[in-house]
């Protein structure tokens, strides 16, 4: 679907926010779903790039929060308002929302992993699963620049706790250092997105404290729609040692305990 760029704003040297008009996607999007974006119509890079849908509006705008990771995202950052990008979506299975919240929820973000957690918080609040103050975002990153969308969570009334590896913003340390004491005092359902190493550590903590945990995984993707089998992750199987599931359509959100890390 050809979409017009409305804005493409640099947040800090490594992060950008892209807003495009994509009515069909905005109409169907669910928290945790993603899109496959083609940064240009040439062959370099050849494949589309996956991005979580960060925000969307009834008017049809959708927003993507992205970091410069390589060639594709660098080209993406050069697009100006008015440019056209081809976007496929919404794709994948997002977060499963419990109907009522029995306990406060914890959202755990590793830097850019915060992207799909904002719509999750919004949805939890607007569907009255929880009140804003029953949701806490734990946001971690290497440095201050990696802590994103804090303002947006604040606007929702969600509590935000921050940590950075270099201590330049919030507590010094890893996001699991924030999570562990919270789970110890009151085990709460966890929704996490971030680098695989972080997700694995979060999953391990949740297993330890026996609290449900949903993780949004990343994988290299070619098609994004379940056709190529390229994006699989190893998960628990009923009648076998394991099975492969496709991150693009059976995920990207998985129950952490089902993932074989």
């Amino acid at each position, binding site marked *: 679907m050809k979409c017009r760029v409305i804005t493409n704003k640099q947040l800090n040297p490594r992060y950008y926010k892209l807003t495009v008009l994509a009515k069909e996607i905005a109409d169907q999007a669910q928290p945790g779903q993603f899109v496959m974006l083609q940064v240009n119509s040439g062959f370099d890079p050849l494949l589309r790039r996956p991005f979580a849908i960060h925000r969307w509006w009834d008017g049809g705008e959708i927003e993507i929060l992205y970091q410069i990771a390589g060639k594709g995202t660098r080209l993406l950052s050069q697009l100006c308002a008015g440019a056209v990008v081809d976007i496929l979506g919404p794709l994948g299975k997002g977060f499963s929302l419990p109907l009522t919240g029995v306990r406060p929820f914890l959202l755990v973000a590793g830097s850019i992993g915060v992207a799909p957690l904002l719509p999750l918080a919004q949805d939890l609040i607007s569907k009255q699963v929880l009140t804003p103050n029953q949701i806490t975002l734990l946001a971690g990153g290497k440095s201050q620049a990696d802590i994103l969308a804090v303002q947006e969570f604040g606007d929702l009334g969600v509590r935000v706790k921050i940590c950075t590896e270099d201590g330049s913003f919030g507590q010094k340390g890893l996001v699991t250092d924030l999570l562990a004491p919270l789970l110890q005092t009151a085990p709460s359902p966890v929704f996490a997105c971030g680098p695989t190493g972080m997700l694995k550590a979060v999953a391990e903590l949740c297993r330890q404290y026996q609290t449900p945990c949903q993780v949004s995984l990343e994988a290299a993707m070619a098609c994004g729609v379940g*056709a190529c089998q390229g994006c699989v992750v190893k998960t628990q199987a009923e009648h076998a040692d394991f099975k492969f599931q496709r991150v693009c359509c059976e995920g990207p959100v998985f129950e952490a305990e089902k993932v074989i890390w």
Partner: protein
Amino acid sequence: MPPQLNVNIAGIKLKNPVLAASGTFGYGEEYSRWLDLNQLGGIVVKGLSLNPHQGNPPPRIVETPAGMLNAIGLENVGLKVFLEEKLPFLTRFDTAVIINIWGKEVADYVTIAKELDSVREIAGLELNVSCPNIKKGGISFGTNPDLLMELVQAVRSQLTRLPLIVKLSPNVTDIVAIAIAAEKSGADALSLINTLIGMAIDVKTRRPRLANITGGLSGPAIHPIAVRMVWQVAQAVKLPIIGLGGIMNSSDALEFIIAGARAVAVGTANFITPQTSIEILNGLRQYLVEQKIEDVNELVGSLAV
């Protein structure tokens, strides 16, 4: 009058010459949200084996310049689940269903071919011969003319109804020798090319980027190699040819037809633009009108050298 697009591949009547290539279009259902499957000439289903197969561990894919490497490892649901759960969906559409099959030894191929021969909804079989033959020390069926002949003869003798397409591997010294071997041993049609073997290394970790170490290269990067092979084979055999490898647009597809392919298949391009096949079809129609060619069959092998 709109140009005539029907082509006949060894008895498989295609309403147009544009197919979806095996392994790049899932079981059809994955793409039905994105395009009207009725418009396709046919769908070649993901490589099927007798038993379900889990494939390789991830990472399974990596992008390369104008291409990608894949080492899916032929993951598939197996014959039984395919017939029960996947085929019924496909048969709802007015498009030819061709089943790509593979095995680790001749007997595997023979068994699955025999089973499929009686399935009315299927239009043809495509033999994936890029798999290593475990009985012959892992030499791929498709790189040795003798192994290939043995396989094709064995499968062919089981079929009473289905045309047999042999899909050639490009990882050979002499594609023509392989094509002739397939023709002699009873193939009804050929499709080429499958992927070229490649490899990519992460220099930071000094590890291969694919868990399988090597993978199959596909995409526009391989198009010139594929066109060359189709042209060479078209000079040497009488069998109808399905040309594929790096087709991204109608011009790429036309190169194959002009080189001698009667039909084409779209692979990697599906991942990038699910509607590629439809766009190719439109481009093909427009080209035929512009060039005042009434029937696409007239174009087949029309290269002026």
